[in-house]
């Protein structure tokens, strides 16, 4: 037998062993994924979505713009009690025309969840790491202001999505505590910039370089009106460029984000703080000719008050004036010979009104003051928005 195979198929000892290993693994997998056999489960497909329309008027440039900034469809399918598919498909700026800037069609999420227990759900696919507030919860009726918080666009680059695997679930010992832990593909330092930090280093699920990897996770505690979270991200960003660094965690980017949401009676608060450390910013600037900061730091606080109950105690609609203050510095620390750019030290004051006739429909108005330490390009924006989610 052995000689026959040596002549015809050359299956040697190692190949046979691999085959055995593969068969054993297949067997184990079948055992594992037999969790789907429940007698009476119906497969159901759900469609959901959200969208927002913006009107922006720049008081400096006198430029007025109206834009269907987002149209999103969720398609979800529950295969069984334990296995669920979720996806998020987005069109930005209503259309994408070749050769023109703006507009984006993107698959923001597409993943499978395998639920083993309340403590453990296994996730695989293209999904959103749990960092900050907006990244995971960004439907228009869920936040105040026409635009998403600047901190959560420029520093924590929402909507940040990558491909990976991970686990999530509730921690049984403590009521209200849950966790998420993921391994995803890393960033690409070539895309980093001084003005938007790591934002353009994301792959967003498209042909991501998997030479760099990242670990990310969050601990969240909920107790009625209080929700607090602590998230981290640690990932490589060399993306195969060995002149920058080697290994999956080469040219590491570390991020910590702490967030809190609290509502009591008609008052609600939000606060978020984040710090990002790009260890090899200096080397990246030399290599790619960019102006990346070494440390990025910032935060915001927001308070809103629902007036409706004062006029109608029974009503479930909301009319909330709100104020948000954001302050962050993309050049909090820089590595010589880069010169600090004070334009990256930014403050935003947003005053506005959010009206929700129903919990998932919203009309927004706000006045945003954009300021920076260099006092260059400062402006005030008058903005209106309409949004829905279902």
């Amino acid at each position, binding site marked *: 037998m052995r000689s026959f195979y040596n002549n015809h198929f050359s299956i040697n000892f190692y190949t046979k062993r691999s*085959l055995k290993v593969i068969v054993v693994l297949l*067997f184990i997998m079948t055992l594992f994924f037999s969790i789907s056999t429940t007698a009476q489960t119906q497969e159901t497909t759900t469609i959901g979505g959200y969208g927002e329309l913006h009107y922006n008027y720049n008081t400096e440039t006198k430029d007025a713009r109206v834009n269907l900034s987002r149209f999103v469809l969720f398609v979800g399918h529950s295969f069984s009690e334990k296995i669920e598919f979720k996806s998020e498909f987005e069109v930005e700026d209503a259309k994408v025309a070749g050769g023109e800037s703006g507009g984006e069609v993107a698959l923001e999420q597409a993943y499978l969840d395998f639920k083993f227990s309340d403590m453990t759900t296994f996730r695989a696919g293209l999904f959103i790491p749990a960092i900050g507030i907006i990244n995971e919860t960004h439907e228009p009726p869920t936040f105040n202001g026409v635009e998403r918080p600047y901190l959560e666009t420029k520093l924590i680059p929402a909507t940040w999505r990558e491909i990976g695997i991970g686990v999530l679930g509730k921690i049984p010992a403590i*009521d209200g505590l849950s966790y998420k832990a993921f391994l995803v593909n890393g960033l690409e330092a070539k895309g980093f910039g001084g003005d938007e930090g790591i934002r353009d280093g994301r792959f967003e699920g498209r042909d991501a370089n998997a030479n760099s990897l990242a670990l990310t996770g969050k601990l969240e505690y909920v107790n009625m009106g209080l929700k607090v979270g602590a998230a981290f991200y640690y990932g490589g960003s060399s993306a195969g460029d060995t002149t920058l660094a080697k290994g999956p965690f080469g040219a590491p980017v570390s991020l910590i984000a702490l967030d809190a949401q609290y509502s009591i009676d008609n008052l609600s608060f939000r606060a978020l703080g984040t710090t990002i450390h790009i260890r090899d910013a200096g080397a990246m600037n030399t290599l790619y000719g960019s102006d990346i900061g070494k440390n990025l730091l910032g935060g915001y606080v927001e308070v809103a008050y629902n007036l409706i109950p004062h006029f109608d105690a029974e009503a479930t609609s909301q009319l909330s004036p709100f104020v948000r203050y954001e302050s962050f510095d993309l050049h909090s620390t820089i590595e010589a010979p880069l010169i600090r750019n004070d334009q990256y030290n930014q403050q935003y004051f947003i005053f506005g009104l959010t009206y929700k006739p129903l919990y998932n429909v919203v009309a927004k108005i706000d006045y945003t003051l954009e300021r920076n330490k260099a006092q260059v390009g400062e402006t005030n924006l008058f903005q209106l928005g309409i949004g829905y989610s279902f």
Partner: protein
Amino acid sequence: MLINKKITFLILLYVLSCTLYHNAQSQVSNNVLAGVNEKVVHSLKKMFGDSVSVTLTKIILSTDEKKQIFDNAKTSWNKDTITTYVCKSTSKSIIGYGFTDDVKGKVQFITYLVGVKLSGEIVDVDILSYREAYGGEIMYESFRKQFINKTASDQLTPGKDIKNISGATISVRAITLGVKRILTTFELLHKRIQ
């Protein structure tokens, strides 16, 4: 086809094991329904005491009754048969009831149990199965305890009387409307339950 004997044997063994295991799983899944009932009984014992006896019964609603329930609860049953558990003390007198129901979250159904005293107050709301990855905050005790002692005459408006949890609006709404519907049903029909 020239296949190694060993490999053939391994493949056959694999197929056999899968079949055997699958059969075993089907046995288990036939008991899943029984398992759900066990979960219910366990939960009702926590609510009404270890010595309580639990019997399964069904309430069948007429079209008229369904309309009445909709008028009061602002949400309607999409089925005619309500699964009810009658809880009796050792002296055979009824001390309370359990109602199980499924409400739709964002994508998946949420299975829950409401324990109601004979006098109409909620003892507890237990989430028997929460299937989705988001919105599971309704499982936390800090949320569920809002329902304790609520009766059919209580307004249970999601987001107002039952406080919302950030990021779980849909499941909060679903479970609150469901509980209200159950309380309304109980109020209307508890004299019928034996």
